[in-house]
């Protein structure tokens, strides 16, 4: 390997900030391209699962004008004084949802293989926002997470590695870090403010809220197993959740605490995906954790003579 080829290659547009902000290293430092590529692939896999497992089998029920949907079913969402929008309001009910679904799925496949991720990411985002707004009743917080993830992979130069448009370079490939930093701030806010609302709740303070959630015959996917756990386990899970959520940004600042917090986060989302009817919220949240895996080390390891 020549010395020239081992030089890091930077791909993308480095943001310019005024004055002292221009020295904000945390925001401006680039990140290894493999991290953002892994995020892109994880988001694409989750989107395809969401579309083909969670949506397509019931597609007509969800978006048909004679069922739960239709472009005019939820007019209040688009009332004056607000800025919600949906491409489906400009397309006919007869074929619009199907066409947009096909476009959405195609763009998600494009993200999966890394083909024009800026375009595919923005198309996915526009389709996701359109479906989110036209029938918001079908959604939970996972849809807002999905929207944020699509924007991050669109603006993150996520095709610089592991894709059909990846740069051929024998050394380290770096991309602008701000899209994943913005995503990190979004997740920190999600966790911290969730924790604050929980902290203000009597049910969360006593811990009994998780006992009732885990025994709810609709919200819980495995209520038969919940009864096997002692009450204190349900209560402790509520307290651990609050501490982890509120402490998440602080834990990230310390190396060992970071590993524990990230491991706990991935475990939390995986377990709630299997045991609670939170569906795509847990799925997309899990995708976010792909950026924390040091994928570039494997590449560096493989490149060693």
């Amino acid at each position: 390997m020549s010395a020239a080829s081992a030089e890091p290659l930077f791909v993308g547009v480095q943001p310019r900030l005024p004055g002292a902000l221009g020295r904000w290293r945390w925001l401006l430092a680039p990140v290894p391209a493999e991290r953002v590529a892994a995020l892109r692939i994880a988001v694409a896999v989750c989107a395809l699962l969401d579309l083909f497992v969670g949506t397509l089998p019931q597609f007509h029920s969800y978006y048909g004008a004679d069922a739960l949907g239709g472009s005019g079913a939820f007019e209040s969402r688009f009332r004056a004084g607000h800025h919600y929008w949906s491409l489906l309001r400009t397309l006919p009910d007869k074929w619009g949802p199907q066409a947009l679904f096909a476009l959405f799925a195609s763009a998600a496949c494009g993200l999966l293989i890394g083909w024009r991720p800026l375009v595919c990411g923005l198309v996915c985002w526009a389709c996701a926002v359109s479906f989110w707004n036209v029938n918001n009743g079908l959604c939970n917080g996972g849809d807002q997470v999905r929207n944020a993830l699509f924007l991050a992979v669109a603006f993150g130069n996520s095709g610089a590695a592991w894709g059909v448009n990846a740069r051929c370079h024998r050394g380290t490939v770096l991309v602008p870090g701000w899209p994943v930093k913005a995503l990190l701030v979004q997740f920190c806010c999600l966790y911290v403010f969730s924790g604050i609302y929980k902290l203000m709740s009597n049910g969360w303070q006593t811990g009994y809220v998780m006992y009732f959630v885990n025994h709810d015959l609709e919200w819980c996917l495995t209520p038969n197993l919940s009864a096997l756990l002692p009450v204190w386990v349900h209560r402790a899970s509520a307290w651990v959740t609050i501490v982890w959520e509120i402490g998440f940004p602080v834990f990230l600042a310390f190396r060992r605490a970071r590993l524990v917090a990230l491991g706990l986060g991935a475990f939390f989302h995986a377990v709630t995906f299997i045991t609670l009817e939170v569906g795509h919220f847990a799925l997309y949240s899990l995708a976010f954790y792909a950026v924390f895996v040091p994928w570039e080390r494997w590449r560096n390891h493989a490149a060693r003579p």
Partner: protein
Amino acid sequence: MAQSPHAPRAAAAVLPWLVGALALWQVAFPVLANLFEFVPRRATPEDHFPELSPTQRWGRFTRSDALQSAGERAGDLLSAWGELTGLDQGWNMFTPDFPPHTVVPVAEVYCADGRTARVWSRFAPRAPDAPGARWPLVHDREFNFEANITMFGWHYSPEARREWGHLPARVSENRELVRAWLNWKSRGTGAREARLIFHYIPTRLPNDAPGAPRRPSYELQVAKWFPATGALEAFDPVAARWVPLKARSP
């Protein structure tokens, strides 16, 4: 997240400045949008329909009209960005509390030929004392739709009936969801009227003895919908009568 020491110098062109502005805004937006939910604002008619946001604090934070208005305009800007980009904030799942019962929505269909039928939610447990497991994700979006309806009746109990005079207002706020769900559940039945009923299955309390019988289930009439006219009525549990809901335009 690992940091690279190689931070390239940004070019002195328009695009890097625009990217910089977007980067700053995207980092600041979630923090500001969530913080502003704790800053009380005066509700406008746009805020009231279909319902007031449960996470936004309502009222005033200062006696100064200028300061109050400035805060509200800043809040408007954050809301507009959240709505345009799909990055709405407000993370308050399972708060302020979770009910000690399962709430199952039921559609009771009255047909023109005099027949009546009940159409239960897909998620209604067949045997509450021997529940089975379900697959994740498969029907998650349908579950969300129903949960968004049943949530407004989460904390009802027969003992608290006299405190539920606000039920018609909650039905009115959620009229689009209620109407769409009743329409879907009664499709193809020839219904002249479809009623939404909440069926409550109490959860065993944490201090109940193992194997203790579950407390009896109970129901609440919530809304009735007339397919021919599209009219919707809501039940007032305090006055024990049906209240016609006036058509409201957004």
